[in-house]
């Protein structure tokens, strides 16, 4: 499975990554090799096989809906790169 430079750039954008010109070529080659290796899965007959998303048959874990302690606002904000008036500050979203 070959992956083109354009595909790498498109997927990088979806993943909110900015890949430099020199890295795109290298990534396309390496990712192409990895996907080619992964393609061996096509040899396996999986007709009618259920997919596994978790190895244990887990069911939803519920708890009673009771009031609980939560992280105080100052602590929640303590690691923020920028904050203002008790909120996370981000660059302009709409023009």
């Amino acid at each position, binding site marked *: 499975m070959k992956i083109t430079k354009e595909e790498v750039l498109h997927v990088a*954008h979806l993943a909110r990554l900015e890949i430099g010109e020199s890295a795109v070529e290298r990534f396309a080659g390496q990712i192409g090799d990895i996907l080619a290796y992964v393609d061996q899965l096509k040899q396996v007959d999986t007709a009618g096989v259920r*997919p596994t998303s978790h190895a244990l048959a887990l069911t939803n874990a519920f708890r009673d809906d009771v009031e609980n302690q939560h992280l105080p606002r100052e602590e929640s904000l303590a690691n923020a790169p920028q904050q203002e008036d008790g909120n996370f500050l981000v660059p302009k979203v709409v023009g």
Partner: protein
Amino acid sequence: MTLYDLSIEEAHRLLKNKEITSRELTQAVLDRIAAAEGRIDAFLTVTAEEALAQAAAADRSIAAGQCGPLNGIPVALKDVICTRGVRTTCGSKILSSFIPPYDATVVSRLKRAGAVIVGKLNMDEFAMGSSTENSGFKITRNPWDLTRIPGGSSGGSAAAVAAGMCLGALGSDTGGSIRQPASHCGVVGIKPTYGRVSRYGLVAYASSLDQIGPLTRSVADAALVLKGIAGHDPADSTSVPLAVPDYTAALGVGIKGARIGIPREYAASEGLDPEVLAAVEGAVRTLKSLGAECVDISLPHTKYAVAVYYVIAPCEASSNLARYDGVKYGFRADDGADLIHMYRRTRSQGFGAEVQRRIIIGTYCLSAGYYDAYYGKASQVRTLIVEDFKKAFEVCDVIACPTAPTPAFRIGEKIDDPLTMYLSDIFTISANLAGIPALSVPCGFSAAGLPIGLQLLGTHFGEESILRVAHHFEQAKGLFKKRPVLSFTC
């Protein structure tokens, strides 16, 4: 008596008998870190002051008659495990200044048991790697040969335990990240059953595969630490509400009649070093001499495990790592004109190459038109791998095979070839896909003097069986007494 080289068991006995104090022991370990760190580079943060305070508290509680098995024992944590008030980086520049506001459940449990935390250990960025060369900060060296990698991603944990820089450590294992470095550094490492140990406060890489476990210098020590951290936690909905057995008591039972499954596919694996094969075959003969029976088994789909893993793990990672956006915590690039640019620059500058590679693979495999061909297909083959193990465990109690296909490779040897690096996890990955427990125990040395690990795999929640077999093997071989000779002392 070299205090930093004591096993947890021995140190506990000395603390309990008041022959040493935790302060003396902790100071000896801190001195050892100061002497060895320049060569090994295992630590990202050393918390000397906090450790000495915890040691003093442990000494007071021991004087008051509280002497649990971990009370006063100096341990260290892979830097993927959150510690309240102590920087937790995940080996990534994107978290280089992150100070968690809470402790991971395993950390609360260790603290409650009186363990002394001496610091945070180097790792491949976000636990993605097999050599610790993907750390955003530094390269850890193997104490047995400083030109070689310690394995990964818990390379700092394994190297620190081997070099006497802590008595035990916690690592995390998503595809072999505890067992492979344990094998390369000549220590014991166990990946528990998925759900046995809470993942609350473990920074997520691939959530259906990640599990925290101990690295120690003996199997008995691994049993003690595992008992200390295991058990149900309401804060992790995938942790399982089952009672935790007394793993130490389980070691006392012999292994006569234990059925050891030998997968017939593995001896012929491409890339398996003949010295590793010989050491593992020798280990199997030792197990037989201890009364175990060997059973021929087949795991026909495990040859696809690496391919399955390198779809499922990047898919889960691409979703988990979406949270690093420069808003709530961590690094933010300062030149983003608008939100999307800020996200893209933050993530490109904050993540290293391997992390970006896996995010792109995962995003690609989950994107419209490719989901069924990649994620769907890999999830189905995962089912076949689970079923292989179910069938195998109908005729055996424990499976034995190599941990890693080769002894530790040289620093720089595989860093430019990700696919070759991935293949060093060929024997470890299937246990994560199936959620079963697996450990690595030292079983020999190569001609060049590098440690080789034997891997033992068990059934879901069958940690007692693999620990028991490993313990009797270790006692018979006595290899755990051999320590790396470092050309410096303290």
